[in-house]
């Protein structure tokens, strides 16, 4: 019964919070409207996430977010230097293949998004069976190092978050 009314409690909480942040107001009216959205949207969108994985590792998620934010700052400076101080002919940009151990579509989506957000790498495509990710690197003299870093730094942590 409770699953029917509240199919995704975390999403309900998240939507309510986002609504309160949008209106920047914590009055009773805003809370009620936020809760209304938080109840209705999960019920309406439930068909779109039939087998959603359950996340039981809040510490892991927080650690992952912090590492990604840090990497974004570092990699931004690296890529800015590549753009400003390297001639195009010296840039070894190439496609690389990342074999995936993650299977949940949600986990792969997070990994692909992370790879794009950390500058210097853009995830370009997924293999048709969802078991390899095509990544374009702006400057990768050593492709294996990039693959190892992505697998060790991001995929390993995501495997602990998505069981």
């Amino acid at each position, binding site marked *: 019964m409770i699953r029917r009314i509240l199919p995704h409690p975390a999403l309900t909480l998240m939507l309510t919070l986002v609504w309160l942040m949008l209106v920047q107001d914590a009055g009773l009216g805003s809370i009620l409207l936020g809760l209304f959205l938080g109840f209705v949207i999960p019920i309406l969108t439930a068909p779109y996430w039939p087998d959603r994985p359950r996340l039981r590792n809040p510490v892991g998620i927080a650690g992952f977010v912090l590492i990604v934010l840090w990497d974004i700052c570092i990699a*931004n400076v690296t890529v*800015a230097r590549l753009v*400003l101080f390297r001639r195009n002919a010296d840039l070894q940009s190439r496609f690389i293949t990342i074999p995936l151990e993650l299977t949940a579509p949600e986990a792969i989506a997070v990994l692909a998004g992370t790879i794009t957000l950390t500058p210097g790498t853009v995830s370009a495509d997924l293999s048709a069976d969802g078991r390899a990710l095509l990544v374009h690197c702006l400057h990768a003299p050593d492709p294996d190092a990039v693959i190892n870093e992505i697998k060790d730094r991001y995929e390993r942590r995501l495997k602990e978050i998505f069981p």
Partner: protein
Amino acid sequence: MALWQEIIVAAFLIIGGGFGLVGSFGLIKLADPMARLHAPTKATTLGVGGVLIGSMVYQAFADGTFSVHELLITLFLFLTAPVTAMLISKVHLHQTIRKSELPPTGTDRPWATLDKQD
């Protein structure tokens, strides 16, 4: 606002604007479409991030309020920027790249965008 507060806000704005400038410059300078895709992904992270932090600091100093809209903008950008980049690169792959130009997938199926290519 005191002078030192204005200096802090200005510093964040300059950092953000600087990365935005480098991102736009990269869009012109880099050689091929895939490499050009790297430049805007940078502008949306640290470039926009710097301006947003500057905006939050300004709100805190000027009105003494804590503004959370900037956090939401960051959240929405981080959700949408990778999707845009992936769609642009998929269109590029679809229109100009042959299967032989890409590394093998390592699985028995080809890349999804080129699955139906002869």
